[in-house]
């Protein structure tokens, strides 16, 4: 099941969704087994920003019906902290490294892209223009012109693959995807989380420290599949599909909808090796289909 994602060679088509697997923390919990049996064919880092961020005040999690709402708020060590402390460790991973970055202005994103792209450990970059947990997240990725302007600004800074991560909280994600392609993006990924909210069961106050958060997991699977299908229909660059993938069958559905690669997010919280399991189930499924197709 070797796959190519705009130049990045993948052993199989299942990678992790940004922010849902911390390889460094996993090594602390599981040891070097994480390196020996890494579940994903590429590692996408959690979003990093120019300045360090503490993230949102707790509580940050709410379990929804067949899903999760999070208001993590992109805690990270900031660009310098990431390059100095995290990158050397992540370089030990047996798979290509994709670094997910977000900035609050185009220039911030440009600084991030330039600094990250020049590092040999980095195979590609994902632009988070869609995180619904922090003010700006929504804006850039919801508007085709904004997105085009951003990609045009950073495209000249690197020859490495640029993946634009789309937000589902938009009237027409496919239009944003077209804009990204037009401006030189090498791929698009979707969906990010859907804006959601929950109340404290007793006090009735908003549960999440940040007031609202992003919904992920099985609850968004059907919505993600529809958006991936719509986007894949309107762009020619590869699409990384994600949203509620728990099994090989869910991954197969995204591939049928036009995705080239599938990302597993929340399911990794239930099963830290979900990526490898989904990849195996997918392989099995496609094998069976080839057989029944008499191929």
């Amino acid at each position, binding site marked *: 099941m070797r796959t190519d994602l705009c130049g990045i060679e993948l052993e199989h088509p299942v990678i992790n969704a940004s922010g849902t697997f911390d390889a460094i923390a996993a090594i602390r919990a*599981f040891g070097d087994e994480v390196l020996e049996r890494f579940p994903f064919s590429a590692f996408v880092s*959690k979003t990093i920003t120019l300045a360090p961020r503490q993230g949102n005040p*707790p509580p940050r*999690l709410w379990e929804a019906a067949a899903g999760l709402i999070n208001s993590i708020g992109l805690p990270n060590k900031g660009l310098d902290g990431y390059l100095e402390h995290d990158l050397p460790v992540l370089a030990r991973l047996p798979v290509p490294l994709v670094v997910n970055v977000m900035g609050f202005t185009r220039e911030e994103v440009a600084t991030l892209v330039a600094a990250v792209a020049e590092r040999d450990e980095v195979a590609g970059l994902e632009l988070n223009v869609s995180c619904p947990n922090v003010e700006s997240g929504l804006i850039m990725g919801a508007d085709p012109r904004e997105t085009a302007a951003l990609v045009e600004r950073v495209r000249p800074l690197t020859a490495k693959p640029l993946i634009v991560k789309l937000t589902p909280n938009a009237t027409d994600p496919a239009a944003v995807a077209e804009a990204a392609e037009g401006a030189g993006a090498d791929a698009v990924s979707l969906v990010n989380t859907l804006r959601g909210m929950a109340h404290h069961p007793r006090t009735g106050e908003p549960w999440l420290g940040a007031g609202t958060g992003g919904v992920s997991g099985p609850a968004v699977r059907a919505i993600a599949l529809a958006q991936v299908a719509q986007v894949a229909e309107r762009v020619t660059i590869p699409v990384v599909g994600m949203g509620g993938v728990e099994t090989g069958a869910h991954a197969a559905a995204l591939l049928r909808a036009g995705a080239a690669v599938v990302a597993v997010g929340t399911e990794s*919280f239930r099963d830290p090796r979900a990526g490898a399991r989904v990849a195996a189930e997918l392989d099995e499924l496609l094998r069976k289909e080839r057989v029944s197709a008499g191929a």
Partner: protein
Amino acid sequence: MNRTLAPFDRRLGQVEAVDAVGAYRRLRCTDPGGPAPRPGQFYMLAMAERWGGGEDERPYLPRAFSYLRWDAGRLEFLLEDVGPGTRRLAEARPGEEIWLLGPLGAGFTAPRDGRAPLLVGGGIGIVPLLPLQSEIPGPALLGFRDAAHATAGALMEDVELCTDDGSAGHHGLVTELLGARLDGHVEIYACGPPAMLEAVRLMTGERGVPAQLALESGMACGFGACFGCVVPTADGYVRVCVDGPVLEAARLEAVPAH
């Protein structure tokens, strides 16, 4: 060493028995190939079948539980039914399969400079103190809502008991018992509801007594992947699941209410 690494796989155990310990439920299951955990560590649990379909279509994510007992290939947990996840586990039947991930997190460490361990537990929070006491013997001050819950105190030794309603042991809060015992020669090992831990944090802070608090926090993953379980410390938010659940009271800025 206060941290046993977990196998990098969730594994299927089999429920052997679920019985009542006072107002709590005790779940015993097999732990095929699981390593020996360290006191204070925890596991993420989920039933393999019908994990979901409860109140509000939950549970969906696994749930975190300190272990009560471990002996080669066998685990015991003590549960308080507070929602759909604990309810499903409390209703588990012998033979049913259960997902186990763990042991996770960092447990308790030995008392420093020859201090005498003093265990302080509130309600279901006594669980991690059980394996701790059998490794680092010391008196336990335990507080419960009422006699029905206090029954669980019998699982431990050298216990001084109190209840909120006075139906068993002293009538009052465990922090009152602690106040009487708190001197310069002890090290505190505490686990219980946020309000109790916050009181312990403040009391021990004032007197400069070292205290190790086993915290709870809403968790999605249990291995540092989601950044959801953080608590505020002097050096910023830390993840209870990988930096804890046992944390130095002195590091904490507060024990969050949830």
